[in-house]
């Protein structure tokens, strides 16, 4: 579903490739003026590129599809670059971009739903509606591992944020825009579900 959204951008994207390549040499870019602004955004771009593996992991967990995830990462990075003045520098960049990604993804999935005539849905449910594997995902062998895959998205992504990215409950609550108390109950449910799954898998192997 998300793919069909991005289809709209194919023609424009081709133009973007051309203009991007043409404008790339440093001298031309400098002609834009705003040298300081350019330096800041160059720094931001470099930091974003370093973060790419982690941004992709977050997006993959959220979207369940490698190609949707890469589109989402790209959109979020572009938003971050364009809106760099909104970044509170006392906060780590990754947390800000995770938040952008999460909000953007919810917006995209909601739009898709409305277009399909299914009306508005609560944001919490929205990101579980679009779970598919494109042929490209299959080709790249890039699905999440099955046990994590079987967790509901909301749980998986919270587990990633807290257990792996090391976020406090308060930080996670801010990224996902949920009450603090909900973080603990979801993270617990994630672990319980995963533990039950592992137990079941171990049983099946015997």
């Amino acid at each position, binding site marked *: 579903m998300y793919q069909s959204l991005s289809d709209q951008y194919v023609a424009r994207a081709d133009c973007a490739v051309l203009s991007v390549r043409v404008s790339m040499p440093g001298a031309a870019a400098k002609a834009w003026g705003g040298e300081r602004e350019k330096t800041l955004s160059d720094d931001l771009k470099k930091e974003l590129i370093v973060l790419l593996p982690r941004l992709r992991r977050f997006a993959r967990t959220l979207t369940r599809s490698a190609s949707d995830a890469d589109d989402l990462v790209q959109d979020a990075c572009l938003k971050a670059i364009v809106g760099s003045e909104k970044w509170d520098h006392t906060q780590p960049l990754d947390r800000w971009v995770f938040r952008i990604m999460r909000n953007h993804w919810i917006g995209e999935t909601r739009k898709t739903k409305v277009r399909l005539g299914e009306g508005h849905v609560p944001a919490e449910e929205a990101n579980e509606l679009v779970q598919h594997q494109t042929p490209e995902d299959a080709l790249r062998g890039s699905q999440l591992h099955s046990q994590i895959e079987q967790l509901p998205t909301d749980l998986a992504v919270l587990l990633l944020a807290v257990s792996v990215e090391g976020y406090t409950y308060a930080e996670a609550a801010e990224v996902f825009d949920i009450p603090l108390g909900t973080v603990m109950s979801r993270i617990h449910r994630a672990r319980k579900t995963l533990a039950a799954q*592992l137990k079941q898998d171990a049983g099946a192997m015997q």
Partner: protein
Amino acid sequence: MSFDREKLSGFLDGELSSEETREIELALESDPTLAAELEQLMAADSFAKQEFEEMLSEPVPLGLAAAVRNAPIEPSAPMASNTNRVQLRNRQAPWWSAVAAALALVIGSAGGYFTGLNTQPQIIAAAPGWLTDIADYHRVYSAQGRHLVEVDASESDHIETWLTNTVGADVVIPDLESHGLNFRGGRLLVAAGKPVAQMMYTDAAGQVVALCLIANPEPDDVFRSRQIGGFDMVTWGGGDANFVLVSDRGRDDLEAVARTAASSV
């Protein structure tokens, strides 16, 4: 013991007050069932960490890094960011993207997948396109710590065979220990639409120096020092390949390292 089981997770994450923590500790001492439950949670947690950790080793599509690097700093249209999106997906695939995809299948977790510029083959061919791509890769991978390489240095023989066969030029891993550089392993990348062998070295301070080669029937004949994408590079050619040695700015021995590498490959 009467407390909400969710607190076991709060306990694991260090999110409880000292009073609640004490309560759980006491309960764990006296209740083996509870201790077993905590153990299961911890096992699930470490399983998840491992699975998520593995995802970091997956190759980043170079088109994505390029799209970020080349992103306009101001919105170009009222539709905001989406209009600026560079197509990452493979629609009318040029021949080399099929090669890249085939490699991905054969090798399993092969290097980057680059379709972002697939409508501009004449630009792709232009020098020094592959060096710009290498700079992007260096930015991504030199920051990866544990996930620096795809195949570890302990499998050096395999790395040489694998990369030689894939890149189409002889890949020999130079010994750079005289410059304080230890070989850490290799990766297969795709730059400017062609497979590239990347050999990673680190110095005592953990700084990453990468040697990359790309097959070319008419290799460069001179050593050149360049600065591309915020990194120092030394390029040269030999045999059927062009080489580049890349590091962070400010390594004054880079050319000397390059000459050692050139003499041994």
